[in-house]
């Protein structure tokens, strides 16, 4: 009980503390991973050079796939584990494009063009399935992934080379039936997007060094913030504290980069796959504007409450199918980006973990089953893959065994999904109960 009325400054302080606490609670997972990554990095004893090189590669490899999960979350369908099907479609197309001998950027563009209709059909079928399993989309997506794996193996292990003719000794197994277990994309699609100049004999085209890329991004962000402040409604503008913090952050990034350039450190050897990053940026911008279109708004309404949306005249099932089609196509493109960056892939394995790792990354970024933003996706990819890089090294340093770090990171991926799902389901029940009463 309060014995005297609070002064204004006390109320403000309390308000500040309450908002700080709710910020901590809301972002608990992300903050935990920030700490975990930092500790892991310290323990691993990695040099900044090795770490940055790896994280640049992993960011450009995985970010697009994580972005593919956002639209179904918007439509209230949870984490779309069926993106594994998109990844399989991508691998199927990449196998054929490699067989036909296409390479470099033209090969990538051809693959993306060919995979789009295939992924759209798969998305349509998956969406129809999800409409028959409403409320259980995630488990259905997961099992569908395993089911599709069986079909995929049937086609590529037993039919290609036999019933589906393909005469290519580098792709087909020596027995003449079935695609080899690993496909090498070297001299083919490898680095087709990351390193487009290679195809035309210009190694450095669209490949700035990391410091220059950071300076470029900082400038672009600054310009973006200025435009945002000028164009947006007064109430939505960033506050002065946020502006100062952003300014300090950007200035520090520029200063650090200039220092690296002047000192000619190893960091200057790291090259950023600019075209890939532009594609990812394009996807972010596209998603941002998509959420404001009619279809995007419909998806939000469906996501909030299917019944209310149906009453409002939205064709719920159609909107849900559209969400899965978009997600599936994005996943297929994302997996092509993934494959061209790795440069070699396991025909019957590379797609398996796509759903798991993308979902875990999104959740670590602070998303929930009901709400995911572009920021969650990018931050989550960064944090999750930081953990991926440092965990084995930290395991080796701590226990003399990299395998332990490996086990740990796999556990983290499963655990984070389990915990987030459970917390979400629990919250839903509590909400439903409070509505009932």
């Amino acid at each position: 009980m309060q014995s005297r009325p609070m002064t204004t400054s006390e109320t403000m302080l309390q308000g500040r503390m309450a908002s700080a606490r709710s910020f901590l609670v809301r972002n608990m997972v992300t903050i935990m991973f920030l700490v975990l990554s930092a500790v892991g990095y310290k323990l691993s004893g990695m040099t900044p050079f090795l770490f940055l090189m790896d994280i640049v590669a992993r960011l450009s490899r995985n970010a697009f796939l994580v972005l593919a999960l956002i639209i179904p979350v918007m439509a209230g369908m949870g984490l779309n584990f069926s993106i594994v099907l998109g990844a399989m479609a991508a691998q199927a197309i990449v196998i054929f494009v490699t067989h036909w001998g296409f390479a470099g950027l033209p090969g990538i563009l051809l693959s993306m063009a060919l995979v789009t209709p295939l992924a759209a059909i798969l998305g349509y079928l998956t969406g129809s399935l999800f409409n028959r399993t409403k409320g259980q989309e995630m488990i259905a997506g997961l099992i569908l992934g395993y089911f599709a794996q069986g079909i995929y193996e049937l086609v590529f292990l037993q039919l290609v080379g036999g019933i589906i003719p393909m005469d290519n000794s580098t792709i087909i197994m020596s027995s003449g039936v079935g695609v080899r277990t690993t496909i090498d994309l070297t001299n083919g699609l490898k680095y087709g997007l990351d390193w487009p100049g290679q195809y035309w004999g210009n190694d450095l085209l669209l490949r700035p060094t990391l410091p220059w890329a950071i300076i470029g991004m900082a400038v672009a962000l600054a310009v973006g913030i200025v435009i945002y402040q000028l164009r947006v409604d007064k109430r939505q503008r960033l506050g002065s504290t946020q502006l100062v913090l952003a300014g300090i952050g950007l200035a520090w990034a520029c200063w650090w980069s200039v220092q690296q350039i002047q000192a000619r450190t190893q960091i200057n050897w790291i090259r950023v796959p600019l075209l890939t990053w532009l594609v990812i940026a394009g996807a972010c911008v596209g998603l941002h504007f998509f959420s404001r279109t009619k279809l995007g708004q419909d998806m939000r309404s469906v996501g909030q409450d299917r019944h209310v949306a149906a009453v409002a005249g939205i064709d719920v099932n159609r909107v849900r199918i559209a969400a899965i089609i978009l997600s599936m196509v994005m996943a297929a493109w994302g997996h092509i980006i993934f494959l061209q960056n790795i440069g070699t892939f396991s025909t019957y394995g590379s797609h398996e973990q796509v759903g798991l790792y993308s979902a875990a990354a999104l959740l670590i970024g602070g998303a929930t089953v009901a709400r995911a933003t572009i920021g969650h996706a990018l931050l989550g990819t960064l944090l999750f893959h930081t953990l991926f890089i440092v965990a084995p090294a930290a395991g080796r340093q701590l226990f003399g065994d990299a395998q332990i770090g490996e086990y740990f990171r796999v556990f983290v991926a499963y655990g984070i999904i389990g915990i987030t799902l459970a917390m979400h389901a629990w919250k839903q029940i509590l909400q439903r109960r409070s509505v009932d009463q």
Partner: protein
Amino acid sequence: MQDKSFLKDMDLARLIIAAFFILLCVAAIALRLDFAELITSSLARIGMWGVLVLAMLPAIVSGIGPNFGVSLGIVCGLLGGLTALELAYRLEGIVAFSPGMLFFIAMVFSLPFALLVGVGYGWLLNRVKGSEMMIATYVGFSIVSIMKLAWVFLPFKNPEMAWPIGRGVRVQIALANRGMAQLLNNFLAFRIGEVVVPTGLLLTVALAIFLMWLFLRSRTGMAMSTAGSNPRFAEASGITVNRQRIIGTVLSTVLGAVGILIYSQSYGFLQLYEGPMFMPFVAVAAVLIGGASVKKATISHVIIGTVLFLGIQVVAVPVANAFTAEWSSMGEISRKIIQNGVILYALTQAGGE
């Protein structure tokens, strides 16, 4: 009502699978495969999985749905098995355990783990009603992957289990050294012509099924079925639904623990690390193939499902191989397609919210 429902349960999906099984058997005879050998390994395979598939029954009946997280029970069983082996090693020279005794000790040791884990898991599932299947799956995945760390760090000293160099226990631990391999299979086993009948194994499974049958007819069993099939009515008639669901979960987890020990003795090895990861899906698919839905299951579903699904697995491989050598992976592929196709089908039949 129960007897009539059998034909009705045989809807299209099950008919297709049953027809496929018969087709495989006909093909096996036509291809002059060693039929006695096929029956022998089918019997062993069915017995191996029997109790694990039975573990689905209390889960579905109590209303939590097919237990995709039965790997929790499996892990408890493995833990019991390892503890028993460790005990035998530590007490070497003081007490000599007979294989049967050791197997019994393994079961006894796994029980406290299974009870404890089952209660906690049931508590969790009560808080996530409506999403049990997904959450069970990921709880299972999480536990199996954290147990990989545990297998590395738990202080087991028995050289039969530990790697000669480095840390942790092996990926597969042979039970033959302690005489536990095929312990039940060989008990009272007899031959009919070329067919070997693993009497002990089948009797154990039959006993487990009989006990479950008795339980489902007991007071608690009835209360559990009511809580599962009609929670509102159950609450109204004074049954605590959440309590019944926990009982179902504990039973399922315990059966998972016992089931994996029975499985392992038949297989001859305890499979750790990645081993238990995907086992729940096989058990779930088997009971669904038998005619169960995610909301309703009976003992006959368990028996029919186990025979059909595991029978297909045994017969499919040699039949595919007999056609052409290049079809060597057909057995595994057909298992994947049938197993996951059936689970998907059951999910669509549940009709969602």
